[in-house]
């Protein structure tokens, strides 16, 4: 579990590193996505209970025994929601980047600084 948690934080860090260092907007968005994945992993790892299975009621997990067999289902539900939302946001951002590229023919974030101060 700790390993996965650390992985999550590492991904988070990598994501932020990407967001802060890359000039290409798509790469920045990728950084954001990586960071989001990191958070999602962290969430799952927090809900994880050792030696338990996924909270899916199927033949392997009978309903009566589910409480003791599965991991905490709520974080998983949350992650699902978060992923959905994250995907939506990413799609929107990327579509905006396409629009911006069409307007200015540049992907560098440095070229979009007209509004300041």
């Amino acid at each position, binding site marked *: 579990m700790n390993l996965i948690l650390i992985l999550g934080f590492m991904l988070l860090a990598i994501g932020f590193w990407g967001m802060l260092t890359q000039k290409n907007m798509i790469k920045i968005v990728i950084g954001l996505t990586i960071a989001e994945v990191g958070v999602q992993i962290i969430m799952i790892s*927090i809900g994880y209970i050792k030696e338990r299975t996924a909270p899916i009621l199927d033949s392997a997990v009978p309903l009566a025994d589910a409480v003791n067999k599965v991991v905490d289902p709520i974080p998983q539900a949350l992650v699902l929601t978060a992923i959905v*939302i994250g995907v939506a946001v990413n799609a929107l951002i990327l579509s905006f980047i396409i629009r911006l590229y069409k307007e200015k023919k540049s992907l560098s974030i440095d070229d979009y600084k007209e509004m300041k101060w």
Partner: protein
Amino acid sequence: MVNIIYIIILLLGIGFLLPITEKLGKKVSNSMFFLTLTSVSVISVQWLYAFIINGQTSLQFFTAGVKPPLSINLQLGLSESVFITSINILALIGAVYLIKHFNNIGIRSHVLYLLMILGLNGLVLTRDIFNIFVFLEITGISTYALIGSDLRLKSLIASFKYMLAGGVASIFLLLGIIFLYHNTGTLNIDGMIAASPLQSGLKIAGIAIFFLFFALLIEMKQFPANGWALDVYEASNPGISGIISAAGTAAILFALYKVMPLGNDLWFNTIAVIGIITFIASNIMGIKQKNATRLLGYSSIGQLGLLLAAMGLGFLYGGINGKFQFIIFALFISHFIAKAGLFWIAGIVKKKEIKSWGVLRKSPVLLFFTGSFMFALLGFPPFPGFFGKWELVLTLANKHQFLWITAILLGSLIEAIYLIRWFGYILKEKQEENETIEQGATKYSSVFILGTILFTISGLYMIYNPITNLSFYFYPLLFIAFLFITDNILPAYIKNILSIAGLSYYGYVYFNQFSEFRFIFAVIFLAGGILTLIPGFVKKGKRVGFYPSAIIMYVGLLGLLVAKDMFSFFTAWEFMTIGSYFLIIRGKRSQPHALSYMLFSLGGAYLIMFGFALTHVFSGGNGIALDLLNSIKSNSALIFTMLAIGFLTKTAAAGLHIWLPGAHAEAESDVSPMVSAVLLKAGVFGLILIMISSLRFDAKMIIYLLGWLGAITALLGNLMASFQEDAKKLLAYSSIAQLGYILFALAIMSHIGWMAAIWYAMNHFLYKALLFLAVGAVVVKLKTHNMYEMGGLIKQMPFSFVSVLIGIIALSGVPPLSGFGGKWLLYNAFILKGWYLQGAIIAFSGVVAFLYLFKLINSIFLGPVKDNFRKVKEVSIWYLIPQYIIIIAIMVISAKPKIVLGKIGDFITSYMPDNLVVWKGDVASSYMNGKLFGVWDAPNIMIIIGIIFVTLLSWLLIMSRKAQKVEMFNIVYSAERPESPQTTHFSHNIYSHYRKALGFLALPLIVNFWSFIVDSIHSIADFVRRLYNGNGQAYIMHILGFMVIIYFVLFNGGLF
């Protein structure tokens, strides 16, 4: 009652239905869109009604049919219903405003709008923390898309930055939520609060709450992690900016409010500090901003900071109930309406530069609402923010949080700088003729409705506020409202008659209620008001805006006298300030002067407010009666100083005077006497109030210093007046000096000194009104202020000449006119007090006054007449009528001063029994140690001088009855002949030798000081705002940096 869940269902359902119904045509989809928003508003209003009127208690609504934690629950209480009602109504009006924009973009914008409103409602209603995340994201995504949907490059960039910031914020929010869940085992906010994770001692809980709060702080656009927000405000359609600024932040504020109980005092404090830093910082940066929507963005963020600070402080001091509920709501609703309104007006004006907003003058209604919104933001009465700010200051004072008060007032003052300046541009900045503003019923009506709501709420505040009874203002405000409504209809003379009648009626009603010095000031305010309104009959046309402003000022002035408690006093003070500001800014070139007037007044007003709050606290914390000034138990010197400085900004004591010359000189000709002769006395009234209270405690040192200040003010004012070339500026500087005398006389704190002060106050009212009316009328006639361009007008304007002559004799203190009484009382007072050196300065400045008085009358009326003024006629009779009424008054009180001074003396005796002036018949005498000291027999002096004068005149008439009348150039000119009137009139810089000798005293050091302050603030603003370099990446950096700072602050505080 409709289940609140239907709001969500309606918005979501119709939102998804709209793309389908679009096929049926635009009308159908639009009507569905509006119907949805209307029904949502109706539902929320219905609930609000239930909560307020029927006293409904708060309710829980459960989804999925089960109770939490298994399901998500919505809570609807009074606060929730207030917030959703505000949001939904604003959404409805906003939809009206934006409908054209939406129709241009297509049905997707309708959908996005509904989704955004859904998200905002959800944020307010839900009690599930993960649901907050979901609603936040719904709001976020729909907002991003809505901003970008017009596909302009700027909006796309802004939206992109917003998304990055929102993405980062949501990462932290998720982290916070999951850790909290891990800690408490529930997602329900109430459950979490019950588990009190911070108190449980787990380290992880601290981190979890840190992430949660931090994410919300970013969504609250706190400094410095808010560069992206400014871009959003600047770039997106102003209609949408308005919704984001008002409704969006309202919802997030409420979300934060819900989770706040998870924090502890350290957190509350930190949040409050972050809020106040944001408030001050973004207001400072706003000063340098020229772009209208971006400036509104700065202001929005500032207001959010203030709200956040108030909320943090509320939690710190026992939770949001009672007082703090009142405060936050008052501040919130002001910001909410005003900011949305201003953004929407920006959408109508469509001018980027704030300097080009002059086009607003084409639409008086919009102009009116712009002003109202700005003054609502600044917390002026009658708007709710005023009540909020007062209570906030008072509450904080009760908790002895003086640093907080200082910070809040400082921030507000800085905010005033750019808002008032902007408004000044709107009112006065030159505009090209062909500029127009957008027309269109939808946008106008939405602004109009918003404004109406603002005024309705303000009216409710005025009537039902829990602080004090302001019923005095009811009819006057109705009258003012009437004047505003009919401003564009009625001609000026009808409004003038109405105003004079109104003032006279109030005089009649309230005259008997005033006693002692209130009576004297009532005479000054009422008689001054009526006299200075008479010249208004000259004006043709409608004179839009003048009468409401004048009446606001006079109502404020009377309110000062009526006020029994500090709050009504302060309300009156602010009314007076607003009214006079609008009067002053009417002058042609008075925009910068009106601005500095307003800023000094506001600074003074805040000091007065602070002082009142301290009075409340240090007199035992019971109530706010004005009489509490007399029962201050500790820190009296501090309070006294604050109030004194506050009042001294109005009387323009040296150091605080720089606003006066421009403001009084550039004002219209009948406004100058109003603001100079009448308005300045308000400050004197305030000074008298606190000086009376100072009899109960020891403020001797400060009063001693005030005496020096008065003397120096008198000297500097007179010196600077002597070096003026502008006739009205000369009179303005003279006012500064005269108020210096009054301050000096008050500071003497003896019977005779006060008599001198009040005599001076009355006399200054008379002769300054006389001079300003006479000179003002001449200035109007000649269309120039410069004395050296005038000259020789005695033949064309003999009546004005006599007025000015009487005015200057009275002012200079030459016997036998009334001014000498002031000198006699003053000399006696300071000699008896033992203030010899100050007295010598006063005496010196009294003589210096002759320099400018001679210059005034000589340059205007004597010497050669200029060619272009050969044919001018005497000024209008409407200017002369008040002048001659005043002359009669001066003559009467000069010959029989006892009729006034006797009464003044009687009531002063009850406060200051020492150094009495004793009357024997008409002879006044002063006593030192029981021995006769000085004598003044006014009637006798007048008779003797009169007889001598008449005798000599008749002698001269007999001796030289056949003197040949000659023309202006029949003068000896070294056997040459003068070339032109311009080269013969010696008027410009006639005291050059005096400037050589004493000019160093009149160097503009004080002006330089204040410009240094202003420049520094501007430089700081320019420096700080470089932070927002426009790079989205940098903004992420700011967010992370902000996080690190908060972390270390909290770490240092021992949270982790």
